[in-house]
C-alpha cells in the first residue's frame, strides 16, 4: 500500500470503490429499514385497534315476547306510556321465581334501557300492534354484552365481577332457550351518541365530521393554493414577503386550541354564528390547516424547475398563463400531499373544537351545517373518557371508522396525485 507504484493508486481507488459501494448498500438498506419501521409501527397500531374494536360490530340481543298491553298503552298518550314496565313485566314472567327488590333490579339489568325506547318506537310506528303479543329482539345491557363477548370472565370471584352469579344462571337459561344471541350491531352505524354503550352509534359524529370537513376543504384548499401561488410566483421578493413567510410558518406552530379561541372570538362572538355547529368547526379548522397547505404548496412550487417557467415565458405566455398552465399542474402533487396531511390533521383534532362547543353530547344526527354536531375525534375522546367499560371497544371501533374515512379520503387525493405526477 505504501509503495508508490502505478498500480497502487488503482488499488487505492478500487479499495475506495469497494467502500463506496458498501456505503451505497448500507444507505439503501437504511432507507428500506426506515420505511419498514414506519410501516411496522402502523401495523402495530392497526392491529391493536382492530383487536380491541372488532367485537363492537357485534351486539348481544335478547328475545322477549312482549305483550303490548292495551291497558298500559293508552292510545291518546302513547309517548308517556310505561314502556320500561312492559319490558320488566316480561322479564318477570320469564323468571317468575325472582323475588325481592335487589334481585329484581339485577334481573332488569340484563336488558338495555334501549329496549323500552325500541318498544316505544314500535308502538308509535304502528299502533295496530297494541293488544297483540310479539317476539322482539332487544339489546342486552352492556355488562351482559361484555360477558357474552368473553370480556368478563366467569372465573373471577363474584364480588369482583360485574355480572353476578345469579345473573349468570339467568343468562345460561336464556341461552338454552335460544333467547340470547350475538348479531350484527347495526345500531352502531345508524344511531347518534348515547350514554349506554349498547345504544351508542357513530353516525352523528360521522355526519358531523363530513359536514365539517366539507367546509374545511372547500375553503382551505383554494385559499391555500391561491396564497401559495401568490407568495411564490407573484409577490415581490422583499422584507414584506419574508415577514409573511415567517408568519405563515409560525402559524403552523400555534397550538390548535388557540385557533379555537380565535374562532370563538371572531365567528361566534363577532359574527354571531351559533355554537357547536359544523360550519364554525370547519372555519376554525380551515384557519388551522391553511399554514400546512400553504407551506407544502410553496415547497412544491419551489421544486418546479425554472426551465419550465422560462420555456413557457419564452414562447410568449403571460406570467399568469405560465403559472396556471404549467407550474401549478406540476406542483399539484405536492400541494395535494399538503392537503392530505392538513386534512388528516383536521380530521384528528379535538382541542380547537372545545372552545367553540363541539366537544358535546349530541344525540340528534346533524343534517345541515348549522345543526349542533360533534366530530369523530371528539366522540372518540369522549368515549375513551367514559367510565362504562363497554365503551373501550366502541372507542376502538370508532377509530376504525375514522381511519376508513381517512383512507378513502386519501385514496381520492392519491389518485389525483398520481394523475398529476411527472418526472423530468
Amino acid at each position, binding site marked *: 500500500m505504501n509503495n508508490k507504484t502505478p498500480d497502487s493508486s488503482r488499488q487505492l481507488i478500487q479499495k475506495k470503490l469497494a467502500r463506496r459501494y458498501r456505503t451505497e448498500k448500507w444507505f439503501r438498506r437504511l432507507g428500506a429499514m426506515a420505511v419498514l419501521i414506519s410501516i411496522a409501527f402502523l401495523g402495530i397500531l392497526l392491529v391493536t385497534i382492530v383487536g380491541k374494536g372488532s367485537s363492537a360490530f357485534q351486539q348481544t340481543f335478547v328475545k322477549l315476547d312482549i305483550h303490548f298491553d292495551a291497558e298500559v298503552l293508552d292510545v291518546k298518550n302513547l*309517548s308517556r306510556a310505561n314502556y320500561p314496565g312492559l319490558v320488566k313485566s316480561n322479564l318477570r314472567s320469564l323468571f317468575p321465581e325472582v323475588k325481592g327488590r335487589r334481585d329484581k*333490579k339485577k334481573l332488569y339489568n340484563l336488558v338495555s*334501557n334501549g329496549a323500552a*325506547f325500541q318498544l*316505544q318506537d314500535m308502538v308509535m310506528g304502528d299502533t295496530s300492534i297494541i293488544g297483540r303479543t310479539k317476539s322482539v329482539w332487544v339489546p342486552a345491557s352492556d355488562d351482559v354484552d361484555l360477558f357474552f363477548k368473553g370480556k*368478563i370472565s366467569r372465573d*373471577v370471584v363474584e*364480588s*369482583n*365481577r*360485574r355480572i353476578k352469579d345469579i345473573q349468570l344462571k339467568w343468562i345460561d337459561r336464556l341461552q338454552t332457550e335460544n333467547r340470547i344471541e350475538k348479531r350484527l350491531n347495526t345500531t352502531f352505524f345508524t344511531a347518534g351518541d*348515547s*350514554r*349506554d354503550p349498547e345504544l351508542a352509534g357513530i353516525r352523528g359524529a360521522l355526519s358531523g365530521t363530513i359536514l365539517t370537513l*366539507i*367546509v374545511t*376543504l*372547500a*375553503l382551505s*384548499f*383554494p385559499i391555500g393554493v391561491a396564497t401559495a401561488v401568490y407568495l411564490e410566483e407573484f409577490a415581490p421578493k422583499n422584507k414584506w414577503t419574508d415577514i409573511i413567510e415567517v408568519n405563515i410558518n409560525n402559524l403552523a406552530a400555534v397550538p390548535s386550541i388557540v385557533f379555537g379561541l380565535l374562532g370563538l372570538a371572531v365567528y*361566534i362572538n363577532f359574527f*354571531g*354564528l*351559533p*355554537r*357547536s355547529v359544523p*360550519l364554525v368547526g*370547519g372555519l376554525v379548522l380551515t384557519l388551522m390547516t391553511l399554514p400546512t397547505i400553504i407551506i407544502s404548496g410553496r415547497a412544491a412550487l419551489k421544486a418546479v424547475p425554472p426551465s419550465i417557467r422560462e420555456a413557457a415565458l419564452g414562447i410568449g405566455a403571460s406570467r399568469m398563463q405560465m403559472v396556471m398552465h404549467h407550474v401549478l*399542474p406540476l406542483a399539484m402533487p405536492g400541494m395535494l400531499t399538503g392537503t392530505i396531511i392538513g386534512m388528516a390533521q383536521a380530521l384528528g383534532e379535538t382541542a380547537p373544537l*372545545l*372552545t367553540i*362547543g363541539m*366537544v*358535546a*353530547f*349530541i*344525540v*340528534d344526527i346533524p343534517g*345541515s*351545517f*348549522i345543526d*349542533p354536531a360533534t366530530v369523530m375525534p371528539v366522540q372518540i375522546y*369522549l368515549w*375513551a*373518557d*367514559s*367510565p*362504562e*367499560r363497554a365503551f*373501550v371497544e366502541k372507542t376502538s371501533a370508532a377509530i376504525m371508522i375514522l381511519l376508513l374515512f381517512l383512507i378513502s379520503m386519501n385514496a381520492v387525493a392519491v389518485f*389525483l396525485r398520481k394523475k398529476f405526477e411527472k418526472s423530468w
Partner: protein
Amino acid sequence: MKRKLAAIAAAAIFAVSAGSANAARDYVSVVGSSTVYPFATVVAEQFGKTTKFKTPKIESTGSGGGMKLFCSGIGIQHPDMTNSSRRIKKSEFDQCQANGVQDVVEVKIGYDGIVLANSKKTAPFQLTRKDIFLALAKDVPDPSGAEKLIPNPYKTWHDVNPSLPDTKIEVLGPPPTSGTRDAFVELAMEGGGKNFPWIKAMKKVDKKRYKAICHTVREDGAYIEAGENDNLIVQKLEANPNAVGIFGFSFLDQNSDFIQGSFIDGVEPTFEEIADGKYPVSRPLYFYVKKSHVDIIPGMEGFLEEFSSEKAWGEEGYLTDRGLIPMPDAERKQMHDDVKQLRPLEM
C-alpha cells in the same frame, strides 16, 4: 381540474348559504364540568328519547369555562344551564349580575365520591387521612415532634406509617386545575393535617398559612399529575401494581375487577358508605339554571323536571347506577321544590 373546481364551488355554495341562516335555537344548551357531564348526559338522553323535545346539548368545557359562558349574558347564543363540580364563586356571580343574568338558580344534584385505589394484584391500602396528608403534602411536620415543617422526606408508604407496605409512594392524580383535586386536598389532606394539634391551632391564627400547609401537594415526583382521563389512570394502575390512583367513584365501580378502593379511616369506598356520609372524601355536584330562559327555551322545564325527579337522582334512580351518590331524602325533596319554584340564588 375544472370538474374539481366545480365540486369545490358547489360545496362552498352550500357552506355559505347555510352559514347565513343562523337558526333559532329549539333545544336546551348546557355547558360545564366534565365531572357532571356523565350524569347530565344520561338525563338528557332519557329526556330526549321519552319526550318530543330535542335532546339537550351538553358540552364538556370544565366548570370555569362553563361559568364564563353561562355568565356572559341572556339570550339564545348563551347557554341555559351550566354544570359545576364546585359552587359558583362570588366573582362569577357578580359577573353574571353585571351581564344581566339576574336570576340564577342553584341546584345540587348529589355527591361524587373521590377514591384512592390500587391494583387488585396487591393488598388494599388501609389509610387514614393523616397518612394521606403525610404521604402527599409538600411540607410535613418534623417527624421528631418539633412544631416546624420540613420538606416531605417520606419515600415509601412504610415511612409514613409502619403498618403500611414498604412500596414507593406513587400516586396518580388530577392536576391542580381540576375540581377533583381541589376537593381531594380539602377533604382528605386538610382532614389529615388537622390531626396535628399545632397545625389545627393555626387555623384560627393564621388561616392562610394553615391552608397553605394542608393544600399544597408535593412536587418531587411522588404525586404524578396524570391528566383528567380517569380510564387511563385505571389502566396505569393495572400495569403498575405499586401505584395508587385518585379518581371519581364511578370509575372504581365500573372497574371493580381490576382495582380496589383504599379504606380511608377504616371505611371502604362503597356506594352505601359514601351515601351514608361515613366515607369522608366526597363532594357535592351542582348545576345552575337561568330562570329567564326556563319558559322560553323549548323543553327546558321538562328537562329540569326530569333531572330532579326521583327516578333520576333518587336512591334507586338511574343516576345512581352511573355512580352518582344521592343526597339524603330531605335534601332531595328540598332541592326538588327549589327547582319547581326556581328559587334564585342569593350571594
